[in-house]
């Protein structure tokens, strides 16, 4: 599946995506693949006010077929409705140094940031095509770039370009989001935090508290590399901190159990804290197909619509 020309759904797999050139193309491929696999089209909202007809495409909900038009012209048309675009989504993407992992990587493997950026661009792509406004905020120990939530194609391109320009040179900072977010997100939004969460956990939780306090809906998309989740190193290894000067030379096999325990302890805590704050927590590995994240996002959007 990884060789030759993959189908649209194949582009959901990171090893296929990584071979594509620009982030925009990747995002488009992801969303196309994702949409073609869905039974219902995510592209249109379904508000009460009729807007126009459009020809049926596979995946459209058959409940919206206009049988009268079919009777007249013998072609299937879908009834489209005008929808309010009051759903704002703000993508908070971690561009700290730790997201560079793995720096020396084999072909077909994405770094955490590449994965996060592809995910962010895909979401932006999907949202823009739904007429939803999407904004971007890149941060490490400070906010490195910010774009307000808009829904135009030009904005989308600018957003993708911004992601591609990210430098990944600074360590994560504590409280950067708590400090700056209030001024950046004035309207109630869906906030998607895409990060490896290798930062001050207490500061992170304070940020989530703040966001919830300001009534944002929050999805935390926790991106880790497979190495970080499984820790399957064999030979003696010198681990050098990406964000710190510390280093450690160990036999990784002997340390694996303790490492995994520490990781599990961390994940359990984050999972619990998110649950307490009604924050959606999505665990992602850079080898996982991107539809998992997109599906979770759409499920949340659906949930918000029904509220």
């Amino acid at each position, binding site marked *: 599946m990884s060789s030759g020309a993959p189908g649209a759904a194949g582009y959901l797999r990171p090893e296929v995506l990584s071979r594509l050139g620009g982030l925009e193309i990747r995002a488009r491929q992801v969303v196309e693949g994702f949409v073609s696999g869905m039974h219902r089209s995510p592209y249109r909202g379904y508000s009460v006010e009729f807007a126009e007809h459009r020809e049926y495409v596979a995946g459209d909900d058959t409940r919206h077929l206009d049988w009268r038009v079919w009777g007249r012209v013998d072609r299937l048309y879908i009834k489209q409705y005008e929808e309010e675009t009051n759903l704002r989504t703000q993508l908070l993407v971690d561009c700290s140094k730790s997201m560079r992992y793995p720096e020396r990587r084999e072909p077909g493997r994405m770094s955490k940031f590449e994965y996060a950026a592809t995910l962010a661009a895909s979401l932006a792509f999907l949202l823009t095509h739904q007429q939803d406004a999407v904004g971007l905020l890149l941060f490490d120990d400070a906010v490195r770039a910010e774009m307000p939530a808009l829904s135009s194609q030009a904005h989308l391109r600018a957003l993708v370009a911004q992601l591609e320009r990210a430098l990944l040179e600074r360590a994560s900072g504590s409280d950067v989001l708590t400090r700056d977010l209030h001024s950046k997100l004035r309207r109630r939004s869906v906030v998607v935090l895409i990060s490896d969460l290798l930062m001050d956990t207490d500061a992170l939780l304070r940020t989530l508290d703040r966001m919830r306090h300001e009534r944002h809906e929050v999805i935390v998309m926790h991106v880790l590399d497979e190495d970080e989740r499984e820790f399957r190193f064999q030979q003696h290894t010198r*681990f050098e901190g990406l964000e710190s000067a510390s280093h450690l030379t160990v036999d990784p096999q002997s340390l694996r159990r303790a490492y995994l325990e520490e990781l599990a302890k961390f994940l359990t805590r984050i999972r619990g804290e998110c649950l307490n704050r009604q924050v959606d927590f999505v665990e992602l590995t850079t080898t996982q197909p991107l539809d998992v994240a997109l599906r979770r996002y759409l499920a949340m959007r659906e949930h918000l619509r029904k509220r």
Partner: protein
Amino acid sequence: MMGWLGSWLFHPALALGGAAVAAPILIHIFSRRRFRVVDWAAMDFLLAALRQNRRQVQIEQIILLVLRCLAVLLLALMVARPFLRPAAAAALLGSGARTERIVVLDDSFSMQYGMGAGETVFSRGCKAVEQLARWVGSELPNDSLTLIRSSRPDQPVVALPNLSEENIAKLRDALSQPMASDLARGASTAVASVAEMIERSPTQTNTAVYLVSDFQKVDWVRPAGQGGGGQGSGAGQASVIAPLAALAETRKSLRLTLVDVGADRPVNLAVTDIASSATRAVAGVRGRYDVTMANYSDGDVSDGELRGSIADQALPTIVLPRFDAGRTLAEPLEVTFGQEGADRVTADVVSAAAEDRLPIDNRRGVGVEVAAGVPLLLVDGEPSSDGYRDEVYLLKTALSPAGRVASGNDVRVIADDQLDATDLTAFDAVFLANVYRIDEVAQRKLEQYVRDGGGLVIFAGDQVDASLYNERLFAGGNGLLPAELGETANAMEAADGVGIGTWDEGHPIFRPFSGEAGRLLKSPRFYAYTAARPAATVATSGPTTTQIATTQPGARVIASLDDAEHSPLLVERSFGAGRVVLCTTSADLEWNGWARDPSYLPTMLQIAQYVSRPSSFVGQVTAGSPIRMNLDANRFALQASLRLPSYPADPAYPIEAKSGDGGFQLLWERTDRVGIYAFELKRTSGESALRYVAVNPEARESDLRRANRAELGDALKEMKFEYVRDVGAFADESATARREIWWPILLATVAILMLEQGLARWFGARA
């Protein structure tokens, strides 16, 4: 080091591969230096993990490292081909350190026991020594070896500084020489000499002592009921090993190994003693030799024969009665010597069925000096031309009867007044018959005579002055007279006098009257006798008796009359080297009718033989003891020659008499071989005369019963020792003495490697 390794590795050099044990450690160290570098984001988790299980990781790593090192060590060991030895082999070889090995080879005559096919216990011992040397030489060629014989512990047979092929050839040559001795000096007797030898060597020397012997019980095991330090078999005391045990206290490296080469169930008959019943052999007089034999076998012997010979002339064979296992048997050998001079008697015990394999002790001999007659002096207290009134006529007739059978006695009669002028030393016994008075000169002369070994017989009679006798000869119990004389008792009142009541049946004088013949002593009648109180009785009543009791043996009544008082008839006592017999009645018919009785003649002959001065000639000695022969310088030249039993193969040795306390004496000390030693003496007249002395084997050595391991363990409690029963069984093929153990090591190595892999996986899987 290599020597030590060589004692349990075929290829000790390859064991150095064990140094490869460092390999896993080095690999461990290098692998810590060779690592890949990863830029890692989640450092916090890693650091926390490290803090959590640093100690556990270290322990796991050490366990794996130890297992890997062990596997490498075992591999090196396997390549070096280690081997085990059987316990007996290990005992013989000892530790691998350089060792001085002292081998004591028992050459006592019991080792000449035949094992069949021309082999003896001794040759088996020699073979064991050679095999031991060969084998030790192949394993530890730098060890020294000293071989000594138990009979000559101060003269090593060989002393080899190392066990090279050349030296082992020397040892083989030495062992091939005839070495077995006829002595009874077993390995136990050499222990003290070995201890001295070790004591002279430096303290730090490793020493191994091997006793190669048949380990006879009589040498090693204390007889039952005998406490430590008691008398008896001498070598059988616990202290046999004491000199070595004392050394072992300070020299921990001293090891003792007993190599038992003895036969399992030895069969042995032996002549253990031959002794003449007479004090002197007389030409033409039948004499008797009592031969004692022992059956040291497990089974009874029913076809035994005793074969005697005089001067190599066979005597009639005596068929022995059934001879029980472990018992002794005494048989008389009747012998008559043809003429005056020197002769020798031998006795052999023979059994066709018993298959006696130790011939040396089947024969025992004795050299004899044959006299023309026994010179006796009768002092007649009442001479008369009428034989029946003469005091000693009948006595003289009894001591030297006419007829076909000679008594051997050469009797001379003198009157009592001639006593002072007579040289008593020419006589073997003096008879005083009814001698009235003994003056002081005679008293001193008689005392000196008896003290020097002469015999004295005193007959009572009506002329005897009892008070004078008591004063001069009894002297308060301190004199010659065995009893104090009392009143003369007259038994005429009883119709027929008195008879002999009791007598000591075991006494040599009454030997002819044993059994039925005892009735003969009942017939003589006695009408008068002198009362006598034996010296021992007097001894308790006066202050001088204490002296008697301590300085003189008491008198003994050997025959009593059957009167109311049981008056003594014959009383004897020893005085110096001689004997005195008192007869309380007269020698003639005046006080009794004894001389008319058949019992008179044998009794008088027996008395004469009993009291006669024994011959000073010693006709037999035990092998190893010196021969001493007194030489009358008036009759013989001081230069003589000696023919050993091996003569004429060996020439005669010249020998010269030396002056000593008792005159001139010929002394010959090298009596290693049993057999007849012949001394050729030169008379002053120019003629030569032979004297024979038999050198006999030690009787005790004939008891071949072996002490087993447990008994040796009990007897040698003071010192630990190894016991090896059969050297030949393993040393014939030295390869069988090395049992390779590479395969269990291989199994162990594989097991360890599997364990290492398993643990490594488990530690990893847990992680």
